[in-house]
């Protein structure tokens, strides 16, 4: 009897005292969840809710020759940041030209002049709209764009190239300048084959043209001497 009263008294004192002390302690970690989450989790939620993927393409990632990862950037513990974004925000919009001043009065080639020099434009006389479609032109990587690599082959390429596959659609229509140093990082296969062939061409001619001319000149004078 005496013993149980003693225990009850102790509990009556200790319980409020513990609760009182707990008010002085820092807040428990599970309570933080609703207020703020970690940066990386917030970014992933943002990606899912907006369809805006900053760091990676949808498909066919493994088939594209273009290098999207650069040494150093991916090795950082937090790859997501506004400064390390490697694609422009406009490549993921439902209307890629949203907010451009006087857009209605401008022509594609006023801004995209380099995109008019490729074989499709120069040889096949294709206009921009035949592939990129009417207004609004969705960004190439927007999830619902016909140009998105997941459906580009079926929605765009196969209009002319019947039976085009996703692999076929990884052909780079607007080729970068093959010899430029930026192509070395963006499309190395093209860059290295360009320089290999150019050095081979220049080297072969640089050796054999003087070689044969000298041979001719030397023979010419030798013939004279013989006479």
């Amino acid at each position, binding site marked *: 009897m005496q013993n149980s009263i003693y225990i009850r008294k102790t509990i009556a004192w200790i319980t409020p005292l513990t609760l009182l002390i707990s008010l002085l302690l820092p807040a428990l970690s599970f309570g933080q969840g609703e207020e703020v989450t970690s940066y990386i989790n917030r970014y992933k939620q943002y990606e899912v809710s907006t369809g805006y993927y900053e760091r990676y393409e949808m498909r066919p990632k493994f088939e594209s020759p273009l290098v999207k990862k650069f040494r150093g950037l991916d090795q950082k513990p937090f790859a997501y940041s506004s400064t390390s974004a490697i694609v422009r925000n406009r490549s993921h919009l439902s209307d890629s030209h949203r907010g451009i001043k006087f857009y209605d009065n401008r022509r594609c080639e006023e801004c995209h002049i380099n995109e008019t020099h490729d074989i499709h434009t120069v*040889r096949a006389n294709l206009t921009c709209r035949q592939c990129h479609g009417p207004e609004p032109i969705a960004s190439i990587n927007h999830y619902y764009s016909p140009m998105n690599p997941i459906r580009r082959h079926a929605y765009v390429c196969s209009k002319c190239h019947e039976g085009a596959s996703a692999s076929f659609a990884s052909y780079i229509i607007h080729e970068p300048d093959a010899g430029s140093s930026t192509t070395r990082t963006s499309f190395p296969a093209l860059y290295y*084959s360009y320089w290999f062939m150019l050095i081979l061409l220049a080297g072969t*001619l640089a050796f054999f043209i003087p070689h044969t001319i000298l041979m001719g000149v030397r023979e010419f004078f030798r013939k004279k001497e013989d006479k």
Partner: protein
Amino acid sequence: MMQTMRIKRFSVLDRVFHFFLILTFLIQTATGFSRLFFPTTWGKNLNTVFGGYNTSIMIHKWVGVLMILGFIFHTIYLLTKIDWKNLSTSLFGPNSLIPNIHDAKHLYQRILWFFGLGSRPKLGRWAYWEKFDYWAVYWGMPLLAITGVMLMYPVFASQYVPGWTLNIAVLLHRAEAILAVSYIFIVHFYVGHLRPSSFPMNEAMFAGSITMEELKEEKPDWHEQLKKEGKLEIVKVPPPSFSYKVIYFIFGYAALGFGVYLLVNGIIYSRYITLH
């Protein structure tokens, strides 16, 4: 008497291969250039010769397939020419087209001779530049064939390789074609026609034979080899008939003129085209 004595240099089949290559190569150059130079006025005019842009590519494809068949046929012929019992002599002997240490030596002697620092190299059956000519065609043709077939059937090709390799294929096809055309129309034509020792035309590839004089002058090592082997009497052939000579001179000069025409215009309009 010595002047009319002729030594057989190329078999009939060798000459047929060369003739086939002249015809197909010139057609491929003309139709290929008509596409390559399409953005220029000259390229557009060249297209009309072949019946337009689409017809010229059709000719280019058909002749390309013909060239591939010729290449396969030539490779089979090449394999039959190998003496499998004496493989090392067959591959690295004096009658082989495979480059060896003597070619490097000859090249070195030749460079010294250019500047009057030594005597002319004693060339064997195949001079080093003749070997280069042969192997340049032999590696260039498969490259053009593979990239060409890829571009002929791009949808089919992309089932087996990623589609972006077509970007590389266009580049390689163009660059290799420009290399081949400039080499043949500058270096090969010069060696065959303009060089003092072959002016006005080196007839060996058409007549199939060279004079004894030329053999001793140009290929002293081969002459010695034939003498040592006692084959000098066996390889003697009669000179080509006059009418045949007229035909191959006309054909040779037509091919030369056609090639030079394409080369000169190609150089003039080269600033409007790119390698890729």
